[in-house]
């Protein structure tokens, strides 16, 4: 179940991306964090405890929301704009 709930921008153009292989739609103007958390409730699991994480500060300071893309690249979700065709793997440690 999603963590975030949209209250604006619902009519913006859809941006398609893959979340753990499942086709999903974000909106133009989304960060990657928003795109993920409007579908599911975590962006990664902790390397240490395996507990789920979903970001914290949303301003690029806490480094909690790093995610792994299917090509192996790692990005900080809260400061990365969603781009069409992105493929995110949330189960992996990032």
């Amino acid at each position, binding site marked *: 179940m999603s*963590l*975030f*709930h*949209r*209250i*604006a*921008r619902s*009519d*913006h153009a859809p941006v398609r991306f893959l979340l753990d292989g499942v086709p999903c739609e974000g909106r*133009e*103007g*989304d*960060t990657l964090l*928003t795109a993920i*958390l*409007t579908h599911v*409730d*975590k962006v990664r699991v*902790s390397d*240490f*405890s395996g*507990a*789920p*994480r*979903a*970001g*914290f*500060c*949303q*301003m*690029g*300071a*806490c*480094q*909690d929301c*790093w995610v792994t893309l299917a090509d192996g690249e*790692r990005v*900080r979700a*809260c*400061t990365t*704009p969603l781009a069409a065709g992105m493929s995110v793997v949330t189960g992996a440690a990032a």
Partner: protein
Amino acid sequence: MSRPQPLVVGAGPAGVRAAETLVRAGLRPLVVDEAPACGGQIYRRPLVKDERDARALYGSEAGKAQRLHGAFAALADRIDHWPRALVWNLRDGRADIAVAGESRAVAYDGLILATGASDRVLPVPGWTLPGVFTLGGAQVALKAQGCAIGQRVVFAGSGPLLYLVAWQYLKAGVKVAAVLDAAPFAAKRHLLRGLALAPDIVLRGMRFAAELRLNGVLLRHGICDLALEGEGRVAGVRWREGRRERHLFCDGVGYGLSLRSETQLADLAGCAFAFNQRDRAFLPQRDSSSRTSVRGVYIAGDGAGIAGADAAELAGERAALALLEDRGLPHAPERAADLERKLARIGRFRDVLEAAFPFPAQWAARVKDETVVCRCEEVSARALRNAVHDFSLDEINRLKAVSRIGMGRCQGRFCGAAAAELLAVETGRGVEAVGRLRSQPPVKPVPLTLMPREAAE
């Protein structure tokens, strides 16, 4: 050969006014900012425009936000602006800047640091659960992304932002279940003193609280032992009021205890630091003109000590005037004195706010052993206490070496204050006696794939 350009780090209220003042004197600064557009956190803009107008986004501060955005837009062809860029190191009069996939070493002549702040946090059980965000984070989700962090949200912690963010969620139509203020209700009497200094701000805060209450939001003061609960995501909050334990269900939490200054770059620039009682933190030393201990390095805005956006605009301009004076350019001394007077007045109001929202100093003695203090590497309070006693530690960098606290990806931004408080209590001293975490480049993670490039002088 001409002198290198001044470098302004940050394009929030302080950085924008600094750049504007330099431009007015005929200089062409380089402004580097991590965000895609100017505004800082407080006047941050959505990535793309949406249906909400400035009033909906910035409330009573809409005019200030629009003026700041407009002022920066007007500078466009008279400055160099690198958005989405990170100053990750400072060395020998050069800044290493990660921008567009490469690292550029840029020589500067005059450096104005306007690096801002983020939420100050003391760890509580469950603070790493999905659905728990800082107050600032909850605000970014709402304002910049048009999203609520939950459908039944609790805001907890302390400071003016607590009430502001709760009120913004309420106004956006989100169910706010409770506002849990760690400050005792009696502390609010200090706000009466604030009425004389900043009546509009105090009255606005009182209106926020009144409207929250009128709309059925539970407002509690003097709460302690906050714990966030849930399996896999936050599902409730638990807290104590005196002897009574209380609980509420929720699916989102905003949490924060005022703000903390972003000081890493000042440290790398070699600035001397001193303990600041009001902010309960080590801050770069600066005089009333915004000069640091290092010649040619100036610091303004919340990155120099928490004072808010209005002060940041004034201090940014003041810092730029100091830079102009040090360069032998006309520097408007009367204007500078006026800015300093206004800043001193805001400083007196900050004293009032700090008394009205006091730091919960009892946290370090009460935090349970199993609470995770470092969310990057999951170092517990127990591990810190054991390290202090097993190795007879009394200094924060030694505690870091032994326990890895502050060594994770956030580099102590979110655990540093807590670790210092714990170390102080465990060694029976004031928090000013345990030292401060040294900063390390890169100040934030940068990809190893960054290609180095020496920029033209």
